[in-house]
């Protein structure tokens, strides 16, 4: 028996090792052949959910950041400075506790000079305190809850716009474009979902619409039939859902199957092909998702990004935040360059260097894939573009009149 127990332990250890290897299996470039200057390696932490319910969006962030890091390492300017940038990829599983652990893992590595991360606001907010404590810059590509940048942390930025903007855009859209007069509002009991749904409801009511019901569901629930039956009796013109695609897809599916054939609208958390896969193309037809920024094809450097992405990750879909993760990473890369020139590359990983990177990010003026990237006094992006997408023929396409 002792033997078989030891065997089980060995298997478990191997499994754990496999996890670690899979987690770190990004790119480790072997650049940094800076002639006379001493080669310096710094790390950018990339943390988002690689597993679990919203892994599609989280892995997209990883892909976008990987692409940016690869391009940075091919940049002759960075080579001249003798700097190699390494990605440190950590999975937060969309879980606040795991996110804080992951943040600690990043901040305890002195070479990490900046973090691109957290998809979920519920993860970004608690983790931001850790980055603040460690004095390293955090740029979220996707967390849209207003609270994130209103905690008084000077090191916290985001390249996506906030729920207040997105929610009120959606409220106007529902009234003006969909002609909805009544709505059933549902959210998923997370800071992101509740915040977005509340903003939507506020704007929808301000524009004369009526919220016939306001419900909160729980994450990982599958059965929304009872909720759908209740909403069906209230006969709303549409459903608004603040939350992610897993639950959103199921609500769309179950409501249409029950005969409640009204469009389901939601925010950026629904804007992925997986939403349509879960709901089923026929059920999702006509559903709407708003997302931060412009559609990829309309982003200033969208085509270039698409070409580079498809070369690097053939057969992979570009998800909602890939370009944001790319831009967030590039903003940190630019700051690293600037600080290296001013203070010397060897000072980058020191507390003073990290502080200088934060200051440099605050003054960012960068032409990214998503447009011009600059931050206001809170660390929010000045780019407030929002786009509505509608499901047509089993795909999200930009909504046109």
């Amino acid at each position, binding site marked *: 028996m002792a033997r078989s127990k030891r065997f089980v332990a060995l298997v478990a250890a191997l499994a754990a090792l496999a996890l670690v290897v899979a987690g770190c299996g990004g790119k480790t470039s072997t650049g940094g052949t800076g002639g006379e200057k001493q080669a310096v390696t710094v790390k950018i932490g990339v943390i988002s959910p690689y597993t679990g319910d919203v892994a599609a969006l989280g892995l997209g962030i990883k892909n976008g950041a990987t692409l940016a890091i690869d391009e940075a390492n091919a940049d002759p300017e960075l080579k001249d400075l003798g700097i190699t940038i390494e990605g440190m990829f950590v999975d937060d599983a969309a879980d606040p506790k795991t996110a804080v652990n992951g943040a600690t893992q990043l901040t305890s590595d002195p070479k990490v000079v900046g973090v691109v991360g957290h998809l979920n606001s519920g993860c970004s907010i608690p983790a931001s305190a850790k980055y603040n404590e460690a004095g390293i810059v955090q740029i979220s590509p996707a967390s849209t809850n207003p609270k994130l940048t209103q905690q008084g942390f000077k090191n916290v930025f985001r390249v996506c716009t906030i729920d207040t903007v997105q929610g009120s855009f959606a409220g106007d859209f529902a009234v003006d474009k969909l002609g909805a007069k009544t709505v059933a509002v549902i959210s998923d009991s997370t800071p992101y979902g509740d915040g977005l749904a509340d903003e939507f409801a506020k704007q929808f009511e301000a524009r004369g619409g009526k919220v016939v019901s306001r419900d909160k569901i729980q994450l990982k629930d599958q059965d929304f039939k009872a909720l759908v039956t*209740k909403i069906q009796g209230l006969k709303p013109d549409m459903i608004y859902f603040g939350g992610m695609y897993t639950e959103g897809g199921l609500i769309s599916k179950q409501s249409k199957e029950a005969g409640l054939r009204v469009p389901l609208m939601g925010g950026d958390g629904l804007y992925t092909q997986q939403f349509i896969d879960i709901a089923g193309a026929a059920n999702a037809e006509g559903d709407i998702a708003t997302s931060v920024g412009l559609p990829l094809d309309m982003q200033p450097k969208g085509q270039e990004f698409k070409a580079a992405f498809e070369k690097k990750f053939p057969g992979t879909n570009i998800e909602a935040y890939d370009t944001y993760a790319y831009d967030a990473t590039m903003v940190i890369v630019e700051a690293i360059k600037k600080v290296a020139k001013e203070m010397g590359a060897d000072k980058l990983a020191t507390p003073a260097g990290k502080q200088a990177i934060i200051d440099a990010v605050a003054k960012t003026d960068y032409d990214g894939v998503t447009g011009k990237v600059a931050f206001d006094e809170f660390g929010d992006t000045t780019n407030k573009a929002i786009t509505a997408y509608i499901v047509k023929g089993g795909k999200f396409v930009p909504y046109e009149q």
Partner: protein
Amino acid sequence: MHFNIADVPQQLVNGLTLGGMYALIALGYTLVYGILLMINFAHSEMFMAGAYFGLLWLNILSKQSFFTGSAVGLVLLYGVSIVLSAIMTGILGVLIERFAYRPLRHAPRLAPLISAIGVSLFLQNAVLLWVSSRSIPFPVKFPVYQYTLARDGSGSLAFTVLGASDKIVDKLGQGAHAIVQFSTLQIMIIVVTLVLLFVLDTFVSRTKLGKAMRATAQDRDTAGLMGVDINRIIAITFFIGPAMGAVAGIFSGMYYGNIKYNMGFIPGIKSFTAAVLGGIGNLRGAMLGGFVLGMAEALASGFISTAYKDVIAFVILILVLIFRPGGLLGESVVEKV
């Protein structure tokens, strides 16, 4: 809080379907507890594994034109997939018992419990790493109809069958509205569940093997002395429970349209609750507990609050346990010697 009396029949149907799935899973918990006094926390993963095996067989068998050509073929496709998946999951259950629980049978009661949690984590992560972390669509290849009892345009009762794109007002005239609807899937789940529960109940109470199972549950050592092969009985128990769980897993996949590596967690906890509610160790109790819990959840989320439906379900559990510590159908004395 929102009470619309017209919703009651439909909410009961929603609850009945959910309850049927809980009952099928709850049987696995209660069977194992009855015989080994052990809570098999890996049982929720049997539900998950069953769904994945089911999908595997569906994909394999769909390649044969025999199964996709006709209505009979489609029924057979799902029937055969469910049976094969149940057998595979049953074998998995037996293997888990053999390698993770049997070595610990004489250890303190906490040891197998921890082992069960380990097996559960292992299976979840195995599927996560080897299959996918994403939701996988679970195909329903036959048309799903809504069998609808309704009031037609003139207000009199009418019955109609609605396809996926039919509107009730087109069939029954303006102003028509449904009173209660059963979908093809709901009918299938409820009927198959009731049949399985009946078969299992008969098996345990009327057959010789069932008698041996009951004897083992009553007193394992004495049953052994009377010539019952204890290991065989336990293996059979660990076959039946997971097989039932697999059926529930496939139903869940068809009903919700997706399966995922962690799909067992919530239904597992709920079904365990159902087993306790009905009186753990008691077969009919698990069935009753499943249906009561499903109904309570549907009614609570339909009429009170979706956010508090679990709170309400667990308040019911606590109230039942205060007044009947053994559960609804449990014996008042749970202590076994």
